[in-house]
C-alpha cells in the first residue's frame, strides 16, 4: 500500500514536470529558433536547424550598419521613453489630487477615468489623424509625421487605469508624513514633490515600464501618423522591412527581433514581480 502510494507520488510528480516542460517548449520555441537563426549567415527561412552550422555575426553587422534599423530603434525608445516619462508625471499629479484632496466631482472623475478607457484611442484614429493634420498647419513640428505629434497623441492615455493604480499606492502612504511637513510650512505641492514622490518610487517605476512597453509596441497610431523611413518607429519599420521578404531577409530580421525584444525583456525580467502585479491588477498587456 505504502509502496503503491509512493509510486503514484513519483509518477504524478514526473507527469507534472513533464507537462510543465512541454508547455515551456511551446512558449520558448519561437524565441529559441529566432535566436539561432540570427546567428545563421544563410539568411533564409529554409534551414530548420535551431543551432546553425557555422554561426556568425553577419546578420547583426548587416542590420546595424547597412539597414535603417538603428534609427527605428532609437525612434521607438525616444518616443516611448519621453511619452512614458511625461505620462507618469501627469498620472502622479492626478493620482495625488484624487488621493489627498476632497473636492466635488472626485468620485465622478474617478469613475469617468475608468469609463473613458472603453473608448480606445485607436477607435478615434480618423479624428486623431485629421486633428494632427490641422495642428500641423499652425505648428508643423507638432503635426503629422513628427515625433512630438505622436508623443502628444500618446499623452492622451496618461490618465486612466494607471491613475487608479497609483492612487491606490498613494493611499497606503500615511498622511502624517505630509502633515508634519506642512506644519513646518511646506505647501501641498512641496509635500508631494519631496515626500510623496520619493516614497512612491516603486510604483512610479512600474507604471513607467508598463507604459513604455505598451507604447514601444504601439502600431496603429504610429503607422497612420508617421510616413517615411527616417521617421518610423520599430514596429512600423520592421513590418515594412520584413513585409513579403521572408525568403531573403529572414536572417537579418531575426537579428532585429532579438535586439528589439531584448530592450523590453531586460526591463521586464528585472522588475518581473512588480510589473506582473501591476499588469494583472486589471490592465491588459497591449
Amino acid at each position, binding site marked *: 500500500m505504502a509502496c503503491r502510494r509512493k509510486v503514484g507520488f513519483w509518477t504524478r510528480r514526473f507527469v*507534472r*514536470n513533464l507537462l*510543465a516542460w512541454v*508547455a*515551456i517548449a511551446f*512558449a*520558448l520555441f*519561437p524565441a529559441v*529558433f*529566432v535566436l539561432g537563426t540570427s546567428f545563421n549567415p544563410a539568411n533564409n*527561412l529554409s534551414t*530548420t536547424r535551431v543551432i546553425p552550422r557555422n554561426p556568425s555575426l553577419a546578420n547583426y553587422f548587416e542590420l546595424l550598419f547597412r539597414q535603417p534599423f538603428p534609427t527605428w530603434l532609437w525612434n521607438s525608445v525616444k518616443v516611448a521613453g519621453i511619452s512614458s516619462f511625461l505620462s507618469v*508625471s*501627469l498620472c502622479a*499629479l*492626478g493620482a*495625488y*489630487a*484624487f488621493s489627498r484632496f476632497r*473636492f466635488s466631482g*472626485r468620485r465622478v*472623475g474617478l469613475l469617468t477615468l475608468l469609463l*473613458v478607457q*472603453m*473608448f480606445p*484611442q*485607436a*477607435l*478615434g*484614429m*480618423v*479624428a486623431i*489623424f485629421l*486633428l494632427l493634420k*490641422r495642428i500641423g498647419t499652425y505648428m508643423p513640428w507638432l503635426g503629422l509625421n513628427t515625433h512630438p505629434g505622436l508623443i*502628444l*497623441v*500618446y499623452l*492622451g492615455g*496618461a490618465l486612466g487605469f494607471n*491613475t487608479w493604480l497609483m492612487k491606490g499606492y498613494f493611499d497606503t502612504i500615511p498622511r502624517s508624513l505630509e502633515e508634519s511637513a506642512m506644519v513646518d510650512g511646506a505647501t501641498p505641492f512641496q509635500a508631494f514633490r519631496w515626500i510623496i514622490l520619493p516614497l512612491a518610487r516603486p510604483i512610479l517605476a512600474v507604471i513607467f515600464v508598463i507604459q513604455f512597453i505598451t507604447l*514601444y*509596441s504601439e502600431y*496603429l497610431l504610429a503607422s497612420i501618423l508617421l510616413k517615411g523611413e527616417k521617421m518610423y518607429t*520599430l*514596429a512600423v519599420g520592421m*513590418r515594412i522591412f*520584413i513585409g513579403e521578404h*521572408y525568403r531573403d531577409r*529572414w536572417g537579418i530580421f*531575426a537579428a532585429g*527581433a532579438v535586439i*528589439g*525584444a531584448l530592450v*523590453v525583456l531586460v526591463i521586464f525580467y528585472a522588475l518581473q514581480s512588480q510589473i*506582473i502585479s501591476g*499588469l*494583472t491588477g*486589471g490592465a*491588459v498587456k497591449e
Partner: protein
Amino acid sequence: MVVRVLLKVALLGLFDALAVYWCVLFLWDGNWTFLAVTAGGTLLLNWLVLSSRSYPLRYLFPGLFFLSLMVVYPAGYTFYISFTNYSTGHILSKDEAIGLILQRTYSPTPSVSFQFWAFGEEGKLYGLVLRGEEDTYFLLPDGQLSSLKGHELTDHDGDGVPDELDGHPRLTRRELFQNIERLQTLRVPYGEGWLRMATLTEFRLYLPQYRYNPGKDILVDRKTGKIYRPVEGKFVADDGAGIDPGWVTFVGLRNYIRFFFDPRYHKAFGRVFLWTVEFAVLTVGLSFALGLALAILLNDRKLRLRKLYRSLLIVPYAIPAFISILIWRGFFNTHVGLFNQALQNWLGTKVPWLTDPFWARFSVVFTNVWLTYPYMMLISLGALQSIPGELYEAAAIDGAGPWQRFTRVTLPLLMISLAPMLIGSFAYTFNNFTLIWLLTGGDPVVAIGERAGATDILLSYAYKLAFQGARGNEMGMASALAVNIFLIVALVSGISFARTRMLEEVSRGM
C-alpha cells in the same frame, strides 16, 4: 514668496499673450473649433492659477488637458464625422470647393491666340510681344499687359519675325527655356478671362468655365450651358455628371444605414462582425483554459522549480507583441515557413496557413492564444492563491472528488474574481488590430473587389476604409464603423459588469 508670486504672474502673462496671438490667428482663418478650444482653455488656466478654490484641479488639469485633447475630443469628432460624407473628394468646405471650381478655365472655340516672342539678355527677361489677329501687345515679365505704343519693334531681315525690342535682342529657344517656369505661371487678365502660355510660341485666352449663382445655389458651365445643382456634397447635373471636388456635408444616418442595407458594405460588415466575435471568444476561451490549466499545475507547492517554470512560461508575454507576431508570420509562411518545411520533410504535404480562409483564422487564433495565455495564467495563479484551503478540506470531507472540487469550488470562485479581467481581455481582443494587421493584414481576400478579408476584424476593416481604400479614403464610413465598435464593446462590457457587480466593488475602493 513675493518672487514666487511675481514669477507665477509673469509666466501666466506670457502664456496669455501667446494664447491671444493664436486666437487672432485662428480668428483670421475662421477656424472656430481651435479658437473656442484655445480661448476656453486659456480662461480655465487663468482661473486655475488665480483662484484658490480650484486648487485640487491644478493637479488634474495637465492630465485632463491631454485626455480631452487626444481621447475625448477625437471621440466626439469621430461621432461627428460618422454623420458626414467625409471621404476622398469630399474633404473641403463648400466655399473652398466652389473657390477651386471657379478657378477652372477652358479655351473657347474658336480659340483666341497670340503668337509671342520674348526679348532680353541672357538670364534677364525684358518683355514679351504678343501678336494676335488684330492687336499686338507688350507684356512685362510680371504679367502687366499694355499696348505696344511707345515701344520700338524692329525686324532686321524682314522675315516677319521681330529681332529686337527697344534694343533688346530676341531670346533664342534655349534662353526661352531658362525662363519657362516663370512664363508658365503667368495668368494675364484679358477680357473676361486670362491669357496663359499654351505652347512655346503661343499665348491663348482662357475663360472661367463655371459661373456660380449664390441665390439659386447653382453652377453654370459656360462651355456647354449645363446646370449643376448641389446633391449630397457635390455639384451634379441632371444627366448625372458631377464636378470634383465635392465638400463635406451632413448625410444623417446614411453611413450607418449602409452597413446594414447597402450590398457593398452589409455583407462584409456582417461577416467581419461575426468573425470578430468568434475571434475574441475563441481567444479568451482557449487562452483562459490553457492559462488556468498551467496555473493549476504551477500552484502545487511541491513542484520545486515552479518559480523558474513561471518565469519561462511568461516569455511570450515579455516579448513585444509586434516582434513575436512577425516571427509567427514567418513560421506560417506557405513556401519557406518553418511549419511547412517540417510538414514537407515528414509528411510530404503543405498547409496554406495564411492563404486559405479557414487556416488563416486558425493561425490567427493559435498565435493569439500563444500571446495571451501567460496573462491568463498569471491572473489565475493570483486568484487560485486567494482561495482558502479550508474550502477544499470541507469539500473533501463531504466526499467531493478532484473534478467536483474543481467545478464546484475552484471555478465558481475564480470566475467571481476574474470576470472583470476576462471582460477586459475580451474588449481588448475585440480590437486587437496589431495582431491581425501584422499576421495576415486581414487577408486572404474572400472576393474580388471586396476589401474586408477573411481575417479582418471590425477595427482593421475600419482602418482599411479610412486609410487603405481602393476607392479612396472613406473617413465617414470608417468613423461610423468605429462608433459601432464602441457601442458593441460598451454594450457587452456594460451587461457583463452589471452582472458581476464589478462597479460596486470599484466604488468601495474609492
